[in-house]
């Protein structure tokens, strides 16, 4: 939707941006891994428990993949799960896991967080597709997409069981998690520095990699809304939720 000028790949600003993107991706994957690991403890069914552990391992694998490329290209990534936004995401997830609310956790991890991951990885991967790093982003985006697909049928069934109750739950989690993601992906850091980017906020430098934060965020919201549509959340309701988010 929005366009950006692609700076040649050999400039410092380009590699600084790629490094910060990798830092965010690795931190995000580790948060995802931790979330699935926490979720494993809330499930009684052994098959679902094993599947959950497998998902955690899958996120670990993604983080390993990104770390490997960062090392290969000597990119000094900064992994900080205590950075403001990622820490809040993690704490929010743990609150739902402690209830314990398995469905709530699925909504947060496999719909909200994965929609942002799938969409942003796809955009980053497309922008960097001539590079090995871009190819990895694209392939992980595809894998994460499967997590979303996996959740849709489960959540549809939950909606059918308790229509009003389920919608209320999604709204509560949206207010919890999407508010953090909206602050994180706003054009300016609404809550200060993220604690992951090495220098100043990378958003202003994304153009160097042919990206821009408005497009990244817009496409993520688009996928999130489409996913809610597929689950069966009324279209006006989800737009109403998005309208409430900080911009």
């Amino acid at each position, binding site marked *: *939707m929005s366009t950006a000028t692609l700076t040649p790949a050999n400039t410092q600003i380009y590699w600084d941006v790629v490094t910060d993107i990798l830092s965010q991706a690795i931190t995000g994957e580790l948060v995802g891994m931790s979330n699935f690991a926490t979720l494993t403890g809330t499930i009684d069914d052994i098959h679902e428990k094993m599947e959950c552990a497998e998902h955690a391992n899958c996120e670990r694998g993604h983080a390993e993949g990104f770390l490997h490329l960062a090392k290969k290209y000597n990119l000094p990534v900064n992994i900080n799960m205590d950075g403001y936004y990622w820490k809040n995401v993690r704490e929010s997830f743990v609150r739902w896991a402690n209830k314990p609310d398995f469905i709530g956790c699925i909504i947060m991890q496999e719909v909200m967080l994965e929609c942002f991951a799938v969409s942003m990885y796809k955009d980053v991967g497309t922008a960097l597709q001539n590079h090995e790093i871009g190819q990895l982003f694209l392939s992980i985006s595809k894998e994460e997409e499967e997590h979303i697909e996996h959740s849709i049928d489960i959540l*549809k069934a939950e909606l059918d069981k308790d229509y009003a109750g389920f919608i209320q739950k999604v709204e509560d989690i949206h207010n919890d998690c999407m508010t953090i993601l909206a602050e994180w992906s706003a*054009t300016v850091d609404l809550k200060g520095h993220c604690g992951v980017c090495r220098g100043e906020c990378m958003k202003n430098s994304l153009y160097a990699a042919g990206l821009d934060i*408005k497009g990244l*965020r*817009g*496409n993520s*919201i*688009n996928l999130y*809304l*489409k996913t809610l*549509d*597929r*689950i*069966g*959340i*009324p*279209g*006006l309701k989800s*737009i*109403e939720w*998005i*309208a*409430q988010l*900080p*911009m």
Partner: protein
Amino acid sequence: MDSTTSHVEFALIGHQDSWQKISSFVNLLRNNSNDVEIPKEKLAEVYSYFPPRSLFDIEVKSITGRIAKGKYIETFISPDELNLKYWKNNIAKVRDAAECASKLQAGVATLGGFTSIVLEGRVDSLNENSFTKFTTGNTLTAAYIAKSLEKACLFFKKELTEQNLLIIGSTGDIGSACVSYFSGKVKKLLLCARQQNILLHQENKMSENKIDAKASTDVETLLPQADIIIAIASSIIENFNPGLCKQDVIICDAGYPKNLNCKLPGNLHERMFYGGMGIVNGGYNFNPDFHADLYSFPDKKIAHGCVLEAIVLALENKKIAYSTGKGNITPGKMEAIYSMAFKHGITEAPLFNTNGLWN
């Protein structure tokens, strides 16, 4: 798109033509939020990323007592994207919106405003193997332009046969329908469009039929000769110079978005009305009621002709793609849909502009 499907008689696919309306709508949705209103710049960052979806239910009452139920589907094509630069993206959005109408199992769906322009000539591809029949709604729009223009001539005591009629956007689907309708009814046709080849072909056709017509791609050469103007171009007419118009000209702005964004001087503004509009005498309502924010006119019963075409077809139980392609609208088809609408108390709107209804 909602996954819950319920049968609706009609669907209206559309877009907003101003940020003011969008701002009003989004801030209405934020009424529970303690935050201040979102400025236009912030809205523009996210609005066009919203996927098409149904926003509200519509209930239309015919004077026969029949009630038709439908839904409005917003494409979220923003007012800044109504141009060729966003063509590919807009087509995708219209197709998604059409899919939404199909999922709702709407009997008939209309492609309102710019959405019909996007798919003009290709609308039939939507209708292939589709339960929902898609219409551009252009035939009833053209009929209402024609009828309201005749009404305006009566209002200003002008004899139609003595007037030079300028049609800006004459080769478009609605523009060419107006050309056909007014051929032989006015003194001279002044034809204006951007594509010279098609325009010359249109002028030659007029000449073959012994119709006095003059064509130009330059609106400024035609404006001084015009007694009546229909503006029905697909976008804002940037080089419309009101200073070149006759003092007693009658202007019908039938574009969506509005074609004449220039500030018309007072005397001309009083002679400009919005064309292609109809009025539902039995009334209609939205649920939730977004009327004031998204669809506000001087009379709450006024609506666009293209929208009303789908509603009329639904009221008539006709699940047909009445208006498709480009250049297929004939005066006969205009009269036919006009008569169908009339049976249900749906007819051309009273003349109005931003100052309100004309008395």
